[in-house]
């Protein structure tokens, strides 16, 4: 038996040796940490904000829409601590109650001295079960937790929670019938008695809310309210001046006070308010030991903050502030403020915290913006790496080269003029260098001053990120600095599960023309398409900026570059299947284009052919595919095409017998995955490989007892996708490679209409011992470098997986043929060595997507991983074969070279002398 163990051990070690010799290990050295990468941490759009400057440790406590609880330093805006909690409805923060809030004694956590039952902060999350947690806000740790499982989980979705006098109240409305109110001891979870049922036939969804202890519903021009903690359940009706035009909001900090039509209204007789104030956002706080209400409004780019004492409505002149507010922060609303407690304070210590429509958190103090947190970056939906512009001198050189290549035919005859041009360029260069040296040169441009000049390896790029809120960022990919930001209000992603898109219409290659990017989105109010054109280096609008289209966008595609401005036109298919091109002068290039649409709801795909005739574009539907099944039970869960900038360097794969297996490289191939419930197998997953030009289904494959989440990556002639196997309860990855066979149908031009109908399909499945959240392939300039698959996992790591390990041709039986082909013997479980984690210990919270882009170096691929955090790095799948190592010893090699040269000269001299001497002998 011991022998067997030894043998098994020997076998595994042999396997390991084999693996380590064939697979490139991409570990990072210790001194390279944070050298090529950076991470920025975010918390998401704020939902609950609470500033407390009078705590022994000033703090800003946050609960966000991303289900994160965090403490922010009020001075700098940096994260003190952050806890990323449960996702989706389960983690939805319903209540964030901070103990000892201001001087309202009812909110303190009354706990006996010496027990652990007090709390700094209490949160309620989710509805079934509702999790109640007490936090230590200094360390960010949970002190205690209890949960409530409601009897009726559906009704509990609309439940409200509030905290009053050490009791936590759970309010479950049954619409148009009654309210169920249960009180719990906040810290222990014991109920105080039975659930009280309050008959209230007037409650309706959408029009009711909770303000302090009051349950308030809007009914036309009336506010009907009920104090839930009062002894008598008396319904109070408050008449409004006019019907509320916007959503009624509760004012935190005051019991029974609401904001209706920009005015404060109290439904609580004990609480008086200043009803003359007019503002879009209010916050309650304390100043000079008196309760005040502050309000902030944006008017023509100037943010004005004012405040009034609550008791006599007199204004507080010390707190009046006004400052210019950047348009790209969005519309602010005052969420919380606090001042240092002093007698006769001058208001300079007051910190006002705003959340904005662009999902930023802005802190204002002493008439200026103290800090800004760009929380829109927690929801990146698209990203592009843009080459930086050339320095001016290089630009002129580039222009000269271009001029030469354009009239290549007239080159021979034009030697004299070409020579002249060269001489003048160099003269200009020398002149500019001279002027620069004596300090008379032209002032550097904005981009040059910001250090935004292309480096020799093309590793320094502008990272343009498009976020869900419509905010766009231009970030330096080396240092992570935000160079510019833009905000597009009123845009949303498309229907059919499609996000907004960021498109590069012109790259930086066409000096002196500036690069051009376009955002394609949907207008929030009309549902029509919106285009926004801008320069991705400066972040300024270009070509007229915003363009409101008068149709809905169904599909878009990019056209080839159009003369004379090298802009790639955008081909848009509208809801009525008409096509449009932007810019207009590229219309002609749309002739002969193919488009396809995939409807997620009906699981139908359709193909269109675009024709240009008589100065007009028309579409012809040419194919349809129905993946819906017999009873429309199949739903599309993933669609994956190939990257349009991909180059495939190698057309085939050399087999063990030195013959070539040609790859089936079809750029028009799209993988579609559908899911359907199944009587026998619970859930089945179908993969379809569809040629979207001819509309033919190239291959179909079925997984049984398998369900989403599905993540897919499709490149060259291969495909890898991950899914959850319900039967064995683990995540698996299936890989597919397509081959044409030993002969190639057409080596020069690919035509989908003449393609081989049945390519060879190699397939294999692997177990991956982690939960996959994102998949992406690495991409390089020429496609010579090996392709690796970047696997983003649920615990925030990115694993660089060589294709050799995912290869479906890994032989099960260890044959010599497989060995000679360079394939590793099949092992069902994929290894996840820690040295392949490209983000080592820099965990990316809620990793959602990975984007890759080629750099100027063939070996290197730029990577940005997005989620709650942002992580930017670079990877070299085949190691940096075209780059000297950083610790390359230049001195040693120079010394060796000099020594060798001088040595050979000396030896030559000596040899000749010796020969001469010999000749004389």
């Amino acid at each position: 038996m011991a022998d067997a163990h030894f043998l098994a051990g020997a076998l595994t070690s042999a396997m390991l040796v084999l693996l380590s010799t064939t697979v490139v290990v991409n570990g990072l050295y210790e001194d390279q940490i944070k050298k090529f990468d950076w991470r920025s941490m975010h918390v998401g759009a704020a939902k609950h904000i609470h500033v407390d400057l009078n705590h022994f440790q000033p703090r800003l406590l946050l609960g966000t829409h991303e289900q994160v609880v965090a403490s922010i330093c009020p001075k700098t805006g940096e994260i003190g601590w952050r806890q990323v909690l449960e996702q989706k409805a389960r983690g939805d923060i319903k209540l964030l109650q901070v103990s000892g809030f201001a001087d309202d004694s009812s909110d303190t956590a009354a706990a006996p001295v010496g027990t652990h039952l007090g709390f700094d902060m209490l949160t309620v999350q989710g509805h079934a079960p509702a999790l109640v947690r007490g936090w230590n806000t200094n360390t960010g740790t949970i002190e205690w937790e209890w949960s409530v499982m409601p009897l009726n989980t559906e009704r509990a979705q609309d439940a409200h929670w509030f905290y009053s006098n050490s009791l936590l109240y759970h309010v479950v409305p049954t619409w148009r019938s009654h309210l169920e109110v249960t009180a719990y001891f906040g810290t222990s979870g014991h109920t105080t008695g039975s659930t009280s049922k309050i008959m209230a036939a007037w409650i309706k969804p959408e029009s009711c809310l909770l303000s302090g202890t009051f349950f308030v519903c809007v009914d036309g021009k009336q506010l009907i309210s009920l104090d839930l903690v009062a002894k008598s359940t008396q319904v109070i009706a408050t008449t409004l001046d006019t019907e509320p035009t916007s959503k009624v909001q509760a004012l935190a900090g005051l019991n029974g006070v609401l904001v209706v039509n920009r005015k404060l209204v109290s439904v609580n007789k004990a609480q008086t308010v200043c009803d003359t104030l007019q503002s879009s956002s209010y916050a309650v706080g304390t100043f000079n030991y008196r309760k005040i209400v502050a309000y902030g409004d944006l008017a023509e780019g100037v943010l004005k903050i004012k405040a009034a004492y609550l008791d006599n409505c007199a204004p507080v002149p010390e707190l009046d502030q006004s400052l210019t507010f950047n348009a790209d922060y969005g519309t602010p609303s005052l969420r919380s403020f606090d001042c240092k407690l002093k007698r006769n304070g001058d208001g300079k210590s007051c910190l006002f915290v705003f959340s904005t429509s662009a999902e930023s958190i802005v802190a204002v103090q002493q008439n200026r913006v103290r800090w800004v947190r760009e929380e829109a970056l927690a929801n990146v939906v698209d990203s592009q790496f843009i080459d930086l512009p050339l320095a001016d001198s290089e630009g002129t050189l580039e222009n000269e080269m271009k001029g030469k290549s354009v009239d290549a035919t007239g080159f021979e005859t034009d030697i004299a003029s070409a020579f002249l041009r060269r001489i003048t360029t160099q003269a200009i260069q020398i002149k500019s260098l001279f002027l620069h040296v004596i300090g008379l040169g032209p002032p550097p441009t904005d981009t040059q001053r910001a250090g935004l000049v292309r480096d020799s390896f093309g590793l320094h790029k502008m990272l343009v990120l498009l976020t869900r809120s419509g905010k766009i960022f231009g970030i330096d990919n080396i240092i992570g600095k935000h160079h510019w930001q833009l905000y597009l209000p009123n845009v949303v992603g498309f229907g059919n599960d499609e996000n907004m898109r960021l498109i590069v219409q012109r790259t930086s290659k066409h000096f002196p023309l500036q690069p051009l990017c376009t955002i394609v989105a949907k207008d929030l109010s009309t549902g029509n398409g919106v285009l926004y054109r801008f320069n991705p280096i400066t972040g300024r609008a270009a070509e007229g900026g915003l363009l409101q289209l008068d149709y809905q966008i169904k599909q878009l595609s990019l056209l080839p570059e159009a003369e004379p401005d090298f802009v790639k036109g955008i081909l848009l298919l509208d809801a009525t299947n008409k096509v449009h091109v932007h810019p207009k002068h590229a219309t002609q290039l749309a002739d002969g284009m193919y488009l396809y649409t995939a409807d997620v709801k009906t699981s139908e795909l359709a193909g269109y052919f675009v024709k240009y005739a008589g100065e007009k574009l028309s579409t012809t539907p040419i194919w349809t595919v129905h993946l819906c099944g017999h009873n429309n039970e199949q739903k599309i869960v993933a669609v994956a095409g190939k990257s349009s900038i991909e180059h495939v360097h190698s057309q085939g794969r050399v087999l063990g017998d030195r013959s070539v297996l040609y790859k089936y490289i079809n750029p028009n191939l799209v993988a579609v995955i559908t899911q359907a419930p199944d009587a026998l197998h619970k859930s089945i997953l179908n993969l379809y490989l569809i040629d979207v030009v001819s509309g033919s289904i190239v291959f179909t494959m079925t997984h049984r007892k398998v369900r989403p989440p599905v993540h897919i990556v499709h490149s060259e002639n291969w495909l890898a996708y991950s899914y959850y196997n319900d039967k064995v309860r683990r995540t698996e990855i299936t890989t597919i490679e397509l081959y044409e066979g030993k002969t190639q149908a057409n080596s020069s031009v690919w035509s989908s209409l003449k393609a081989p109908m049945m390519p060879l399909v190699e397939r294999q499945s692997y177990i991956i011992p982690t939960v996959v959240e994102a998949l992406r392939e690495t991409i390089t300039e020429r496609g010579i470098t090996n392709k690796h698959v970047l696997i983003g996992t649920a615990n925030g790591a990115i694993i660089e997986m060589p294709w050799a390990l995912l290869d479906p041709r890994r032989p099960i039986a260890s044959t010599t043929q497989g060995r000679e082909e360079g394939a590793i013997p099949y092992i069902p479980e994929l290894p996840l060595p820690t040295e392949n984690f490209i983000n080592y210990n820099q965990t990316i919270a809620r990793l959602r997507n990975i984007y890759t882009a080629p750099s100027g170096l063939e070996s290197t691929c730029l990577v940005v991983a997005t989620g709650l955090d942002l992580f930017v790095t670079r990877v070299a799948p085949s190691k940096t074969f075209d780059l000297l190592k950083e610790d390359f010893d230049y001195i040693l090699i120079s010394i060796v070279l000099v020594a060798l040269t001088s040595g050979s000269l000396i030896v030559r001299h000596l040899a000749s002398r010796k020969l001469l001497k010999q000749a004389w002998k």
Partner: protein
Amino acid sequence: MMYNYFIVICFLLCAANCGWSYLEQDSWTNVELHHGLSSDPEHFSFRGNVTIPSLNSALSSLHQIELKTSELNVLTDLARQNGFYRLKVTVMYPNGKKQIFLTSSKACSLLQSELNDILWISVGPSGFISSVTHTSLSDSIECDVNIIEHIQGQEYNTDVLVKHSELAPMPDTAGFIQKVEREREARERGEVRDNRGFFSKYWMYIVPVVLLVFISGATNQDAAK
């Protein structure tokens, strides 16, 4: 006796096709073909009928009507403009459900192949048709006007091919464990035999020796000079 055989065959069929339990119903699927050969792009005229007794066996019977001269002229015109020959396919399942597919191929290649075409029917995993694709058997990519204007015959010669869905692989843990066991046993018995050739086995020893011989030979030659 005959009855017995029948049962055995049935059983074998089932064993072979258990994966396609959905398709086991003995069902006649009717596929109606309409081609778009008129000036009106929305109008499709009847071309023929394909009856598939069972999608599983992929047998089919075809009935197609001959191409009219006027239609052939339209087709030739389409080919000259490099247009599409569009086919509307109506699939009628035995349960009365109807689905309409659209497929197209270049009119020119249809003419070049002298109306020899293929109808690929892709059958999804639960036995429904997910797409119908029309292609023609023509090799050349360029459209040759001479060929298309001198076409013989006006009858379609169609092959109907059915593509089935396949079953995805599962991670082969059992196979891997067996392989490891086998190798272990072989090792215990001392039967690990290397059946590679002599050179492929010992090349790493031979090459340096040969190199050495060469180098020494070269230096000797120099010395001999």
